[in-house]
């Protein structure tokens, strides 16, 4: 047995002549959390939809736990749990009934299903809400219920498409902890997100996708070291870039919209230069995944 849980090779897909995926290749190791980042329309959702059988690929291969997606899609679907981008819980059923009907789709026998449902409801801390109708649950609870639903069949691989979009910080932190718990149990996770914070905190490796291709794929820390100097100063309130700053060595200057970004491994000198300019505000911080993301995908708006 290899330790690769999922492998996608050369995935291509076009919609009405427009190429959405131009050959996506990646592997997800067992117990790993793999992140896909990218601007809207980059091809993240298309990729994960191919993995869970909601979009047909034009070309390429997908193997999940050694099964070929073209040959044994039913088996693959029984090994995969999916948390979709849109909430598609059954509005007419209670939390528990949602899971019970879902267990049927996997042909689980009643006793196993009952035990498992109790387990997953406990795991996402919704046992007390088991008999509540869906519309009485908060956004965070619904997200957790979607996670519980995805876990009913004890998946080896969990696919999450922007799972924490629109959640408050408490719910988001709680959700992340649940995912970490699953990882410890050996579940492999594929997650797409717009939240760099989420990717940096959860993922062992991230792929930055743009225009249907993987631009870079590595550990978040390695990516930051590879693409960005250590620190950045974001400056607001200046028209042009002051000469004093431009003259400094080892400072990279980027300008976007109203903000000037000054990157460098040692930005103390930049601060001294800036202190001579009146009426500006600035923020000094360490570079993070967002800087890498913007460097690779550009700063222009996409839509």
């Amino acid at each position, binding site marked *: 047995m290899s330790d690769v849980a999922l492998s996608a090779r050369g995935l291509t897909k076009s919609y009405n002549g427009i190429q959405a995926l131009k050959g996506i290749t990646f592997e997800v190791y067992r117990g790993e959390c793999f992140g896909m980042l990218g601007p809207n329309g980059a091809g993240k959702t298309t990729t994960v939809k191919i993995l869970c059988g909601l979009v047909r690929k034009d070309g390429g291969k997908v193997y999940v736990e050694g099964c070929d997606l073209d040959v044994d899609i039913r088996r693959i679907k029984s090994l995969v749990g999916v948390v979709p981008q849109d909430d598609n819980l*059954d509005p007419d059923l209670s939390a528990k009934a949602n899971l019970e009907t879902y267990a049927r789709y996997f042909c689980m026998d009643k006793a196993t299903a009952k035990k498992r449902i109790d387990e997953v409801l406990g795991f996402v801390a919704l046992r007390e809400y088991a008999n509540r109708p869906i519309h009485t649950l908060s956004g965070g609870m619904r997200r957790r219920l979607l996670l519980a639903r995805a876990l009913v069949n004890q998946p080896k691989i969990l696919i999450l498409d922007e799972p924490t979009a629109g959640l408050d910080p408490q719910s988001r932190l709680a959700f992340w902890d649940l995912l970490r718990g699953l990882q410890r149990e050996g579940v492999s996770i594929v997650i797409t997100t717009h939240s760099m914070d989420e990717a940096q905190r959860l993922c062992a490796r991230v792929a930055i996708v743009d225009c249907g291709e993987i631009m870079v794929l590595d550990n978040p820390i390695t990516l930051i070291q590879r693409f960005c100097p250590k620190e950045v100063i974001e400056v607001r309130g200046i028209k042009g870039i002051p000469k004093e700053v431009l003259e400094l060595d080892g400072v990279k200057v980027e300008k976007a919209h109203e903000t000037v970004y000054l990157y460098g491994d040692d930005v103390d000198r930049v601060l001294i230069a800036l202190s001579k300019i009146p009426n500006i505000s600035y923020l000094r911080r360490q570079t993070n995944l967002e800087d890498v993301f913007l460097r690779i995908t550009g700063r222009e708006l996409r839509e």
Partner: protein
Amino acid sequence: MNKVCRYLKNDALALALPSILALLSPFTFAVTYRNLRVWRTYLWASLIGNLGEPLLYLVAIGFGIGALIGENGIYGIPYDVFLAPGILVSTCMYTATFETTFGSFTRMKPQKTFDAILVTPVNITELATGEVYSAAVKSGLGALIVLLVIWAFGLVKSPLAILTIPLGFLVGYAFGALGLVFTAIAPDYSFFNYFFTLLIAPMFLLSGIFFPVSVLPEWAQTIAHILPLTHAVTISRSLCLGTLSQELLVHVFVLFIGGFLSTFFASVLLSRRLIP
């Protein structure tokens, strides 16, 4: 356009065998179970809804027009007795088509239930068949309710009428499948107006429920005999009057094949729509 045809052909080939397997697949029943479980919440409301319209037709047309027609009735059958079996199957038709048009469309689009189901091991033919089966079950229960009513009115002349309950399932299967075909291509709810106005309403009026098809001009008779509801009415009337013949098996066969082919066709269209 050519590309679309090629796609549909590929899908049709790929889904032919799964469509047959889906008829008895546990995954199909899982989908039906889900729909019926939701329906249980609204059971009484929908059963009473089922009952209202046929009762109106029986009273207004059966007893009203029936009084004008007089004792000779239609070919010797009292008019209300003639009418009742047709009203029974038309109730089944309406129950099933509402379920797989408005009902299925709601599950497909606003609720995204189909998307939730399709990431599980359930495949598209099982999803389609499961949807049609739930229409069939509701239709069968509708048949039971109407049967009780017309029996209470003394309009049932044979114990064979009990078989109108399984007939209700069959009619629900056939018409549920037909409705699902339209759902598969419907851009929005208003599209179903075409389906009901151009297909279901004419069928209701021309399938021999209110008058025998044989009084129509010959060309219209040909059309009437193609309509699936005509077959259902013929079977239902024979059962309620107790006049069995081997020909009935042909009508049963037509309804089943119609239902199967429609389900298959709906699967092909849904597959293109839901799994691009």
